[in-house]
């Protein structure tokens, strides 16, 4: 969706301000939100793409005015309500008023570190041949889905070149809504900075995005 999350190329946000010796978390509640989001994701009630969709569907003014973990918290509350795992009244009260719904699994402390150090790959097997090959010229489609997508606006309609064939991966656009993983080929596509930004583009510069096959057509 053309939401506030799609920030590439936007003006007016001011300088980047690095924080010297930045801590991993800035408040105790951020630790809990981080861990709750991961642990609830682990239950299988939704997936990572669904979480991203929930975060970016916050109203743009709210998204931009919220700190990072505040966005995570709001999205988590939204997902809990949408799946019926918790009602807004329960979240307000901090206690259960409805029976718990079954979840596929819960995250236990035992074995947790090994599980997270092993990871959760999103590459998948596919029988479909890759439509594009290294070096192919492609066009990023000029699409504007109102739902989750990972094709940023600033490359839509632009011509690029395949610089990596990354393999087949879960397709976020359907997976976000429990519409199936629908594995598709993923490519790294390079665009020249001046094709993207005209005369203001960095001379000789390149910007790459990782683009799923349905985002691309032959140039």
């Amino acid at each position, binding site marked *: 969706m053309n939401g506030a*999350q799609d920030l590439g*190329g936007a003006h007016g946000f001011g300088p980047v301000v690095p924080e010297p010796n930045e801590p991993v978390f800035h408040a105790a509640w951020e630790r809990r939100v981080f861990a*709750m989001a991961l642990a609830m994701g682990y239950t299988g009630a939704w997936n990572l793409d669904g979480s991203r969709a929930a975060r*970016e569907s916050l109203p743009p003014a709210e998204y931009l005015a919220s700190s990072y973990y505040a966005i995570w*918290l709001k999205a988590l509350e939204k997902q809990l309500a949408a799946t019926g795992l918790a009602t807004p009244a329960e979240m307000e009260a*901090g206690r259960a008023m409805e029976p718990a719904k079954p979840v596929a699994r*819960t995250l236990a402390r035992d074995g947790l570190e090994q599980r997270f150090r092993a990871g959760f790959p999103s590459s998948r097997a596919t029988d479909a041949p890759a439509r594009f090959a290294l070096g192919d010229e492609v066009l990023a489609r000029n699409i504007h889905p109102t739902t989750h997508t990972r094709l940023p606006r600033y490359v839509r309609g632009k011509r690029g070149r395949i610089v990596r064939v990354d393999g087949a991966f879960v397709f976020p656009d359907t997976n976000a809504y429990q519409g199936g993983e629908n594995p598709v080929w993923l490519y790294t596509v390079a665009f020249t900075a001046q094709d993207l930004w005209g005369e203001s583009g960095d001379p000789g*510069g390149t910007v*790459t995005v*990782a683009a799923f096959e349905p985002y691309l057509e032959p140039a």
Partner: protein
Amino acid sequence: MNHHHGDHDHVHHGSELSPVEARVRALESLLTEKGYLDPAALDALVELYETKVGPHLGARVVARAWVDPAFRTRLLTEATPAIAELGIGGRGGEHIVVVENTPEMHNLVVCTLCSCYPWPVLGLPPVWYKAPPYRARAVIDPRGVLAEFGVTLPETTRITVWDSTAETRYMVLPLRPAGTDGFSEDALAALVTRDSMIGTGLPKALPVEPAEMPV
């Protein structure tokens, strides 16, 4: 707007909680009561990402690549299994791609759409990486962003910006600093900064010996 520092801890006396603290505490109580969460597992997740996983791991990967050409080749060809040789890997870095800086090419990593970042090698991203100024400008004005980090590249060095729009996660292999011949892997790893693996910085320069200082 408060993108740079999140909401800092405020001093609260007694049982007084800020609204967000109260909301988060209520949510954890509820989800625990309903059996969806184990607070001990949350503690372990926080401990893992606050104290164990961090850029010191990426620095080991870089140092190994600087001393071992065969490892470097494996790293640049297929990074995830190469990194796993060092016992490093996991969530948020199941599909790592390592991109190499050269005198002709500098690489810069961003996630314009959210905050994708190679967790197993760099840990959780800093606030600036997740905040709008960096996400907006890295792709349109990389030299301006680098200048804000104190990095000025020769005009002849081209820049490639890697926008992390899928589960492939990028890490930069920075140039090995001059004058480090014979350094141990540990000594080299100590020169590798987090930002040098994002591309917003360079490895630490060596202290200039007094004899080499300009007169």
